[in-house]
């Protein structure tokens, strides 16, 4: 792969983000401009910006990588990311906008009139934001390593730095422009190569996967293993080795690998003959292609039925609790406009998510070596130059790499902005723009450090955990806060602690221990199916136990949340 084009394109995306941010800087002058662009963002721009912000590394790289490895069960991720917005639209969007809340902590305080609930929501909000930022920075590292061979930390550092500078300098206005442009860049970067890929595939006689075989190398293939892996060899295969296999230096020799487990050390190059079955890294089930193409095959561990439903619950209900999603609604002028913007967002997301499955299926045919190296998230990056030869292939590869960086930049910008807002206001109590800038630095630096510590986790797994925590804490808070008058501060805090706290602990435990099996591991690694009902139950029971602490202003608040704009009741508070 020629790294020059890719490096140039990635650099272009980074510079463009800074330039567009600088253009926004000239417009934003006052504090209110800085935070919410004074609500002058048009619905079309705003919908593009929401789409651009929402489509993260997990969507751009992770979804295709997961489907490529585990099959159609993973299609539930993009469905959940989309349907989550529908749930948000139908039950939360307009009332949340009318509440005038800028973040979930704002909403909690406005609705429950309690500083303590606010503080708790702030801590959770920062936690979810950081959890979501880590995989973005990891993805940036993976992308830069895959396309240019740069060290793993460089990509993350570049993204964290550009985002921090942009947020510090321009605030929301520049972010809105950057994000809106980035949606269209991301769509182009995924859609244009797919056209060429399908054409090349048809040119080659539209080869289909042989259902009775596992993934096989279509040609003689040389595989470089970048980090040490344990692989399962399905059938006896003779490979030419440069490097270290099973602890012995076998450079320059032909090795007969017996079926079973083998360890391949980092830096080793293996030459496989055409047609041999791909040894797969431990954790990815070595299924035949027919098994792979079926749903409910699972992720290699766990009961596929439970895992699927837990994923559905986490993503359908977690979207509304993501910090960068809620902030975006504030840039709509009113509740009615918020709804219309959300419908456009749904359409934009739907169009985008049609593309990753195509990459996954083509990857199964043309880039099966990623199943050996375990870098399945790189399938989108590797396919264009593999399948479309020559300069065109390299240019397409560069376009995809640029699009991937757009994905990291936009999602990280939105998250950093909202985490910095909460940090400066509630956690550190730093006032003014200087405080906001200090908070921005922290908001970007902490997840960068965490990304260095925990490398090698699947992008979508960590994102899935962020969704589970949001679904178990903020989803009950928002739904009950908007539709149920008897919610009390005590109930809200107990519910958030029980649901969100347990989901966070369960998720962190499974991220730190090696994958296990059995029902206990399933319950811990995919906690949403039990922590979401728990969060709701504790919040309701806790509120019913403390009926005297229902805020006195609840009726007035409900009028503000639900009265249509046409009545002209809601007094606009401009910050």
């Amino acid at each position: 792969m020629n790294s020059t084009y890719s490096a140039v394109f990635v650099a272009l995306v980074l510079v463009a983000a800074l330039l567009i941010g600088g253009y926004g800087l000239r417009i934003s002058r006052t504090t209110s401009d800085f935070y919410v662009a004074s609500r002058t963002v048009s619905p079309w721009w705003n919908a593009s910006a929401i789409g651009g912000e929402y489509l993260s590394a997990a969507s751009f790289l992770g979804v295709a990588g997961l489907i490529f490895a585990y099959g159609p069960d993973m299609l539930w991720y993009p469905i959940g990311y989309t349907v989550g917005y529908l749930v948000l639209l139908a039950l939360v969007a307009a009332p949340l906008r009318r509440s005038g809340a800028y973040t979930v902590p704002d909403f909690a305080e406005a609705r429950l009139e309690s500083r303590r609930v606010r503080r708790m929501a702030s801590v959770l909000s920062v936690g979810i934001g950081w959890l979501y930022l880590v995989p973005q920075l990891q993805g940036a590292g993976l992308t830069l390593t895959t396309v240019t061979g740069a060290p793993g930390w460089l990509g993350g550092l570049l993204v964290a730095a550009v985002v921090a500078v942009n947020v510090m300098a321009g605030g929301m206005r520049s972010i809105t422009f950057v994000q809106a442009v980035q949606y269209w860049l991301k769509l182009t970067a995924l859609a244009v190569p797919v056209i060429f890929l399908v054409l090349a595939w048809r040119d080659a006689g539209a080869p289909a996967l042989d259902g009775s075989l596992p993934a096989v190398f279509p040609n003689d293939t040389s595989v470089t293993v970048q980090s040490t892996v344990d692989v399962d060899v399905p059938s006896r295969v003779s490979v030419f080795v440069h490097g270290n296999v099973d602890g012995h230096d076998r450079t320059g020799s032909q090795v007969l690998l017996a079926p079973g487990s083998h360890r391949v050390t980092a830096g080793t190059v293996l030459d496989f003959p055409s047609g041999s079955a791909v040894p797969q890294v431990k954790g990815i089930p070595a299924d035949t292609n027919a098994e792979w193409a079926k749903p409910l095959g699972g992720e290699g561990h766990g009961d596929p039925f439970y895992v699927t439903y837990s994923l559905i619950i986490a993503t359908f209900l977690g979207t509304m609790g993501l910090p960068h999603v809620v902030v975006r609604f504030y840039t709509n002028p009113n509740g009615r406009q918020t709804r219309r913007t959300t419908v456009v967002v749904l359409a934009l997301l739907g169009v985008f998510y049609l593309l990753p499955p195509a990459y996954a299926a083509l990857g199964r045919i043309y880039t099966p070596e990623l199943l050996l190296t375990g870098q399945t998230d790189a399938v989108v990056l590797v396919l264009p130059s593999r399948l479309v030869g020559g300069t065109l292939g390299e240019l397409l590869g560069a376009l995809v790499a640029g699009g991937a960086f757009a994905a990291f930049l936009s999602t990280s910008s939105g998250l950093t902005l909202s985490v910095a807002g909460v940090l400066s206001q509630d956690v550190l109590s730093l006032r003014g723009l200087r405080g906001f800038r200090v908070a921005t630095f922290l908001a970007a630096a902490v997840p960068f450090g965490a990304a260095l510590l925990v490398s090698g986790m699947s992008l979508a797994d960590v994102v899935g955990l962020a969704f589970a925590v949001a679904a178990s804490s903020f989803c009950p808070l928002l739904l009950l806060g908007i539709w149920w008058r008897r919610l009390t501060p005590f109930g809200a805090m107990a519910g958030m602690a029980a649901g969100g706290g347990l989901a966070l602990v369960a998720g962190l435990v499974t991220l730190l221990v090696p994958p296990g099996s059995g029902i206990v591991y399933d319950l811990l690694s995919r906690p949403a199916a039990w922590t979401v009902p728990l969060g709701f139950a504790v919040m309701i029971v806790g509120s019913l136990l403390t009926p005297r602490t229902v805020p006195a202003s609840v009726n007035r608040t409900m009028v503000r949340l639900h009265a249509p704009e046409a009545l002209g009741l809601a007094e606009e508070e401009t910050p």
Partner: protein
Amino acid sequence: MNGERPRRVVVTSPRTRAARRSRSYPIVREIDEQSEVGALYMRSLMRTQFRLGVLVVLLVCGPLAALPLLFSLVPLTKTVMVLGLPLPWLVLGLAVYPVVVAAACYYVWRVERTEREFADLVEQS
């Protein structure tokens, strides 16, 4: 004849007063002032909106959530080819998205109608 006229004035006078009172205390103001009447109107609006929201969510999420059940109960659906694609890939990868967007459009159309009707009702009274 002379005795009837004053009686007519007495009968019509409360009506005109009532009419005038309702103009100076429209429902909008009742709602704004948190009176019992206003609260009643708001509760009915909230109930309508909530039912509509839940209906749309259930219409989309219900059938979606039934899919894994269908795949496991009728194994044929895991592999059957429809329009050149395996059914799960077609449904989960393509068909879902137009349905979701259509449901969103339906929701916005209905909810805006509800709000318009509510505003009309409140302004008439």
